[in-house]
């Protein structure tokens, strides 16, 4: 049996070096930018602390020995759930009722910088 490959931290560019679970202010700012959120300095401080604690907590998982165990991508032991290529129409008006802002039939969205 080949040695099971653990996901390395390098594959998640957000994450830090092995063993280091602190999330610095710069990283919080970057995450906020990716999520299109504006954070105040106070919030950046608070999230930096909270996210570090959360990440530290999840590091416990790293202690488990996963040698030789297949990675789990889905909690159900299922594969190949498919659908036939047959069209069905849904009343689009129903869906559009949930759209907060419209212009004619278009969904109106903010400009992205």
């Amino acid at each position, binding site marked *: 049996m080949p040695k099971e490959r653990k*996901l390395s931290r390098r*594959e*998640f*560019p*957000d994450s830090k070096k092995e063993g280091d679970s602190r999330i610095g202010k710069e990283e919080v700012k*970057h995450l906020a*930018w*990716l*999520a*299109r959120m504006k954070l105040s300095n106070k919030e950046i401080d608070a999230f930096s602390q909270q996210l570090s604690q959360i990440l530290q907590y999840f590091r416990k998982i790293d202690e488990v020995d996963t040698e030789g165990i297949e*990675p789990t*991508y*889905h909690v*159900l032991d*299922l*594969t*190949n*759930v*498919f*659908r*036939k*290529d*047959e*069209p*069905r*129409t*849904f009343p*689009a008006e129903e*869906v*559009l009722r*949930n759209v907060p802002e419209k*212009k*004619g*039939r*278009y*969904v*109106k*969205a*903010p*400009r*992205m*910088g």
Partner: protein
Amino acid sequence: MAMAKAKKKERMTRVMRRDEEKGKDGEPEVIIGLEVHVQLTNLKTKLFCSCSTDYRGAEPNTHVCPICMGEPGTLPVVNEGAIEDAIMVALALGSSISRRTLFSRKNYFYPDMPKNFQISQYDKAGGVPFATGGSVSIGGGKKVRIRRIQIEEDPGRLVYEGTIDSSPYILVDYNRAGLPLIEIVTEPDMESPKEARMFLQNLRSILEHLGVFDESLQGAMRCDANISIKGGKRVEIKNISSFKDVERALSFEITRQKGLLSRGLRVGMETRHWDDLRRITVSLRVKEEEQDYRYFPEPDLVPITISEGLIAKVKACMPILPSERKRLFIDKYGIPPQTAEVLVGSKALADFFEECIKLKADPLPLANWLTGDLKALLNEMEIEIWESKVTPAHMAELVSLVKDGILSGKMAKEVLKEVVATGRMPRKIVEEKGLRAIASMESLKEIVERVFSENPEAVKDALRQEKAVHFLIGQVMKATKGSADPLMANEAVRRRLQEIASSVSA
């Protein structure tokens, strides 16, 4: 002497051209890689929901449902047709198919995807692309290697009020959001814009032959290109929507970057947008901050296993591919390899060719007309064969008019122009214009006789020097208004000259 000189000159320019392409130390001057997105247009429904894919010309947001609009609590389910299509594409390109594959979530906050992520595939972070490896031939024995093939959903269409820069907000039409796409990523194996065009054209033909893709649908094939020029950094060009534009966009970019480099300026890494109206690339001026998609395996979709059985089943119903068809054209119809290559470069053209053959057209001259004059005329008009008024019946008739000696090659070219412009049948055009080639030696003889009696000095000269012979041939052609076959005119003039020469010496 002159021949040898010309040959040497030709050899020199060829060497120089190669140097230009390769640079002084043998490294390519230009390196191009492509990322092609192809809509699987044979599918009737979106990738993860049952909304119809027949969105072209529809009112905005009419082909939407809670799944493709990203409503909370909905679950995507994979369209099985997309898996079969992807297997076919992978087999056709010689790629190796992953026996177990996964979808990945690509996170980004942009309104073209209502979920704030796109379901795609990825080769890192636990992801497994659908297939890897393979290649596409681009002629001259060169192949462009494929890095990976993956399945993903198309984003929605954004509409700006005014220009992309000044629009105060974005309007979104989600009819396209969730359409099944295949992404084909190449290795950076192309060294010129022309090679990039050849790659896209041949890929398009393969996909057309497979029946997964319809080239006549606007925007069904789009691509992003990466280009690095020696001495500069890698630049990405987004929003290229046809294989003709890929050549234009890359040529523009090479000129732009070479201009910068020659002025001692630097070419930095950046993303640019191809503006197909102005035919220029423009900097997107995105924030220097690095985009980060935080890929992870899609938790809403279970993994997919591809069995040998399924691959064998798909393989068994694979249609004929351009490479096999090219072989067939060479073997069955005696078409030269290069001409056959051009014919199968477009499924529409190859089909057209075979339709003409069914109408008993002579294959070799037919192939030459299709890949030569007709192609040039269509290129000039910037239209594809299916957008033109020309049908197989037109071409079959034109070829037979030439074969029967009713039209000379030169006249047929004129008739073809008229056919392309008006869609009228060649025979009708011939009748109306009173065209008729002077195909028999008998009728040519009379004309030669007349030209000779009108130009006695030239005839005298022609007995001694070649230049005057050409003058006489020219006069004969002129007298027939170009309706004679030039070779026949040549022969008729020389034969008459010989008769005169032998009667003088006798």
